[in-house]
């Protein structure tokens, strides 16, 4: 089986484990308020202080490095003043593509949601097929291994030719980018279902549907979610690039447009938004994963 999929499995196992730890910690007797609040604040401080310091340091170095008159990039202070309009009003709308960053992000997220949802459903279905049947595995796996290495943007001209429209093309690029890790991880998960669980299902004479819902999906869930998590990251990577070429409303085209108008500060602000959104997407899938797979990863 492909090693990337196998390697990434422990990354889901960990979140599931850590949730369990916090679940166990919950039923502690409610102590008097101040006594409980203090360690909580201390904990938050421990977690938040280092990244805040590092961020401040980076901003400081950036400020110094780009403050000279001949600098090609603006320092953070100038980004703030240049693009204050953008930062302060994420949801203004002057018609056309002259909208706030919030609208652009929403448009991109909408495309990702559609493409990613299709990828999740198709990916799990194909993964089950490939994981279940040795024949499907032998036939499809080489194809998947080749196709998954095609860079997302290389699909764009082909999908534009096929769909003759930007919107479905962008969604197709999201789909084709994020479907592979879902397929491959699901297949690995299905193949790794312990023989014991299969035997339990046999003794109980579970039928195909019951086996699918009660054994196969829960047993493979940690793997499936590893694939989904890799997939959501990839689809966010792909959408920004695809939108640059397709145009219209969307964060990718916003960045391209800003570049054409030499609004470097706007680009920097947009990049921060893109990064934060990608981070939130990843956390969201990870959160759902640890919620759904609680208990599955550790037996």
């Amino acid at each position: 089986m492909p090693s990337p999929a196998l390697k990434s499995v422990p990354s889901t196992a960990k979140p599931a484990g850590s949730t369990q730890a916090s679940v166990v910690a919950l039923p502690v007797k409610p102590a008097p308020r101040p006594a409980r609040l203090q360690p909580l604040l201390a904990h938050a401080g421990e977690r938040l202080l280092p990244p805040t310091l590092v961020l401040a340091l980076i901003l400081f170095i950036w400020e110094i490095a780009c403050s000279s008159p001949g600098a090609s990039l603006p320092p953070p202070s100038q980004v703030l003043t240049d693009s204050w309009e953008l930062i302060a009003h994420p949801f203004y709308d002057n018609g056309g593509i002259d909208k706030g960053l919030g609208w652009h992000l929403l448009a991109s997220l909408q495309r990702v949601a559609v493409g990613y949802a299709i990828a999740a459903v198709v990916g799990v279905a194909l993964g089950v097929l490939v994981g279940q049947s040795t024949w499907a595995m032998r036939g499809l796996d080489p194809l998947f291994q080749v196709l998954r290495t095609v860079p997302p943007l290389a699909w764009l001209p082909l999908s534009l030719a096929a769909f003759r429209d930007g919107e479905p093309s962008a969604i197709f690029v999201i789909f084709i980018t994020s479907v592979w890790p879902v397929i491959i991880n699901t297949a690995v998960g299905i193949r790794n279902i312990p023989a014991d669980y299969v035997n339990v299902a046999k003794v109980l004479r579970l039928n195909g549907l019951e086996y699918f819902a009660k054994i196969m999906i829960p047993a493979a869930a940690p793997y499936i979610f590893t694939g989904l998590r890799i997939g959501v990251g990839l689809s966010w990577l792909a959408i920004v690039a695809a939108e640059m070429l397709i145009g219209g409303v969307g964060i990718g085209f916003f960045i391209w447009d800003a570049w054409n108008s030499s609004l470097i500060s706007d680009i920097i602000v947009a990049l921060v938004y893109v990064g934060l959104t990608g981070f939130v997407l990843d956390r969201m899938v990870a959160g759902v994963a640890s919620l759904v797979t609680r208990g599955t990863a550790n037996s």
Partner: protein
Amino acid sequence: MTKAYLSIENVGKTFTRGAATTEVLRGVSLDVARGEYVSIIGHSGCGKSTLLNLIAGLTEVTTGGIFLDNAAVQGPGPERAVVFQNHSLLPWLTAYENVKLAVDKVFSGKKSKGERHDWTMRNLELVHMAHAKDKRPAEISGGMKQRIGIARALAMEPKVLLLDEPFGALDALTRAHLQDQVMQIHATLGNTVIMITHDVDEAVLLSDRIVMMTNGPSARIGEVLGVPLERPRHRLELASDPTTIRCRSAVLKFLYERNRFVEAA
């Protein structure tokens, strides 16, 4: 001609992988009466689990046949419930849900929703695990997991209960405790039980008969020893009982004199 309740007739099993074939069992015959408790003992790798899987229907016999209650065994089913060597509870379900899964499936048309709940709880109570019903397997000890596994098997109301080294992975104290519980359940319900074990004391304490297997490959039943001890049995009283001692030494002699363990060839 009437067959015994469980009748294993001249069963052989050969595994084939590509060109390589391994004959694991040859000419195994055994009759088990209803309500009887039979232990199978033999060295590691001789084919005990293979024999149990054949009875369970999880693997198919190569030669011979197995009959339960006058019907040929074909494929696995809940009337031959298995407690596997390593509990094999589903980790994403709670103890209650693990048992309920079996109850729901086996009694889907026969019991109402409320009855199925009661039956699930009754079986958890039987193994004294009702208090941990909402725990997941990862949150309970090995002994508790094994008890849930036994409850799940009992809940299927099997004609024969198949135990594959049910206490193998447990410490001596927990093991003794569970052995007592299984004896009690056997006394109450009168199940027909086939249990694989490595432990001579366990075999003598629990069984009506002990089936001793020769070393593989091509393992056979070497000897069958009846254990004529009154029930209920108490481990402390039996420790110095002459019948116990005689049975123990008979099994030990078989295992260590006549069928010394040889490193797998």
